[in-house]
């Protein structure tokens, strides 16, 4: 699932030219990335779209936001860069000094101050931002485009600062003397007061800003995402006010994440997952769990990395890589040279470490954007962070203690758990009870894959024997019933294999989904059920189910008949959620075609 090559960087794109045009020179922060040309290119794409291109807010305003955030994070390099740039844009030194010191004191108009305060809060504790913060800016007459830009500029500030912490470049300008300045975010400052005054507003559906509909037919990048993901994540949908920005982000993602030359994609997705979890960003956690599954990890492995990567089955070196990223991305003030040196001792090359830092920077860009725009989840997250427990006035590093964050395994309330633990101790009665409890679910899974009732009944015996053999290894990370379905699935596949039923096997294991278009256009009866008996309908549906390919049948049986969520179906079948969605739609449409001649308006009473 990649869109590299399709949303690639154009030929002859020279990041250095972009920086020279935008800044008048190439900052050392960029030169420090020269070992990884595609990282420089990604950075250039983002700066070009976010900072250099004229938009709803002026370049000076953008630089003011960038400077205030850099100063607030006590980032010497970025503060010097932004002060130098503001100076060259003709902003008086006294004003720059005010921004460096305490933007609360800076001589700004009321709306400008409100915008700056919003950006600072987003940078410090993104999870405290709520819809009413956006509404307050709209009340100050900021356009939706301006607010979107402010959020993206804040995200870019964190991208730059994360890189600056990791790469520690030489200053381009004489560094401003931050050490003598007041501590940022002193308690009682206006900013803190504003943050404390925030109240969680009634949850509103959808992201905070309107986003016009962009069609995959007219906006090529969406067609590519649609093809690779099966759907367009809300993350991208929420930014359609600025298609050029979306394009730049996709190019940056392509350049940084979708390559395998230094760090693997699994390593990079794991970084995105753990740092998003440390930043309490449920949306991004859900996305990257899902991506990891798409890359072949089981749902349990991905969840474990999100919950606590130290307990997952990854190598010691990878654990250290994730520790490095979490410190850099979520606890930057604790980050030191030693963290980099530690990775070198474990055998990571300087380019791999650089890439790890760039991935972390891009993660913070995305986390900030998601929280600033209030982007709604595409699918359920395995982790739910209680954002109201996050101290909204604290510095960015104030996070909930890890043990307070998740009790994922514990929150899976599984009515079977007591019987399971007895069965694990070898208690046969407990196992028998579990088998009876779930026999219908097991049978449905088997018949859905095998397509034959007698076969399915035979395969139940194999399933139960395997389940008993394997129950000791069941770790309770998923529901027991989920685990049973995966055992049933394996038993069914084994049966097809032993019979060399290649056709069915191929149907199930083949990932390709050809195009399927609905053909029946006759309107249906208003209440089809009232014209046919329950038995008639059941026979009709079963016949329909048996004539669609097994890979569609199994998804629709588990989703619509067993009423499991798409996420559960994905786990049980080892599929990605988008793949489940695609197959589910296909299955429903096929069944619709099958039912249509019987249930269309002109066919009342003609069920067969």
């Amino acid at each position, binding site marked *: 699932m990649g869109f590299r090559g399709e949303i690639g960087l154009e030929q002859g794109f020279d990041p250095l030219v972009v920086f020279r045009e935008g800044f008048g020179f190439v900052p050392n922060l960029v030169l420090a990335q020269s070992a990884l040309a595609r990282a420089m290119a990604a950075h250039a794409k983002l700066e070009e779209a976010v900072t250099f291109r004229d938009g709803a807010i002026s370049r000076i305003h953008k630089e003011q936001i960038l400077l205030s955030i850099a100063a607030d994070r006590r980032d010497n390099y970025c503060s010097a860069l932004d002060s130098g740039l503001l100076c060259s844009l003709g902003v008086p030194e006294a004003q720059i000094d005010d921004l460096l010191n305490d933007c609360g004191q800076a001589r700004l108009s009321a709306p400008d101050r409100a915008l700056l305060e919003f950006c600072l809060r987003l940078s410090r504790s993104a999870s405290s931002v709520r819809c009413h913060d956006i509404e307050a800016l709209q009340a100050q007459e900021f356009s939706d485009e301006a607010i979107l830009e402010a959020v993206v500029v804040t995200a870019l500030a964190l991208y730059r600062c994360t890189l600056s912490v990791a790469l520690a470049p030489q200053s381009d300008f004489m560094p401003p003397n931050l050490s003598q300045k007041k501590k940022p975010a002193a308690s009682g400052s206006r900013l803190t007061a504003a943050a404390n005054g925030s109240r969680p507003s009634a949850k509103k559906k*959808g992201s905070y800003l309107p*986003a016009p509909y962009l069609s995959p037919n007219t906006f090529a990048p969406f067609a590519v995402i649609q093809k690779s993901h099966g759907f367009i994540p809300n993350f991208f949908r929420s930014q359609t006010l600025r298609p050029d920005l979306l394009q730049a982000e996709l190019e940056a993602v392509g350049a940084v994440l979708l390559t395998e030359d230094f760090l693997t994609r699994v390593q990079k997705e794991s970084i995105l997952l753990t740092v998003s979890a440390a930043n309490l960003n449920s949306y991004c956690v859900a996305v990257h769990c899902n991506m990891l599954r798409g890359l072949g990890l089981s749902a349990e492995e991905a969840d474990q990395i999100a919950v606590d990567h130290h307990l997952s089955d990854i190598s010691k070196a990878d654990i250290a890589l994730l520790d490095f990223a979490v410190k850099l991305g979520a606890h930057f003030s604790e980050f030191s040279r030693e963290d980099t040196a530690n990775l070198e001792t474990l055998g990571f090359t300087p380019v791999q470490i650089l890439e790890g830092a760039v991935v972390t920077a891009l993660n913070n860009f995305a986390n900030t954007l998601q929280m600033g725009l209030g982007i709604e989840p595409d699918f359920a997250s395995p982790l739910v962070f209680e954002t109201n427990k996050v101290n909204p006035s604290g510095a960015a590093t104030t996070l909930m203690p890890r043990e307070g964050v998740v009790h994922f395994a514990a929150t899976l309330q599984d009515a079977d758990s007591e019987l399971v633990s007895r069965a694990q101790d070898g208690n046969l009665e407990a196992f028998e009870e579990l088998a009876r409890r779930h026999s219908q679910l097991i049978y449905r899974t088997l018949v*859905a894959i095998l397509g034959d009732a007698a076969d399915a009944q035979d395969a139940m015996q194999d399933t139960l024997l395997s389940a*008993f053999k394997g129950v000791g290894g069941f770790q309770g990370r998923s529901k027991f019933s989920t685990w049973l379905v995966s055992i049933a699935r394996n038993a069914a596949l084994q049966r097809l294999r032993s019979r060399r039923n290649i056709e069915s096997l191929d149907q199930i294991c083949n990932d390709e989904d050809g195009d399927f278009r609905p053909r029946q256009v006759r*309107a249906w009866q208003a209440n089809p059920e009232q014209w046919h008996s329950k038995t008639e*309908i059941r026979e009709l549906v079963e016949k329909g189910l048996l004539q669609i390919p097994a890979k569609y049948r199994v998804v629709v049986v588990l989703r619509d008949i067993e009423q499991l969520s798409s996420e559960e179906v994905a786990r049980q079948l080892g599929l990605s959620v988008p793949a489940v969605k695609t197959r589910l739609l296909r299955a429903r449409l096929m069944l619709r075609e099958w039912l249509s001649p019987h249930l269309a308006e002109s066919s009342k009473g003609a069920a067969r």
Partner: protein
Amino acid sequence: MITCEEFFGEFADYLEGQVSPEVREELELHLSQCHACHVLYDSSRKTIKIVSESNSFELPQKVFDPIIDRVMAKLRTDRS
């Protein structure tokens, strides 16, 4: 207004109730004006309802009991 093609692109999410309010508005506007898509939506919704309530492949527990009994007998023999 969006095209039928665009409507179909969102159809899976719409059936699952997983579209943003903005997209939903676009889709519903389209549905109110396009007969073919309206038929597709209405019949798909009914398909889901009928399939969900069909009790397909449901067997009485008494069909499963002998299977489970056989398995348990085997496990008990293996143990002793």
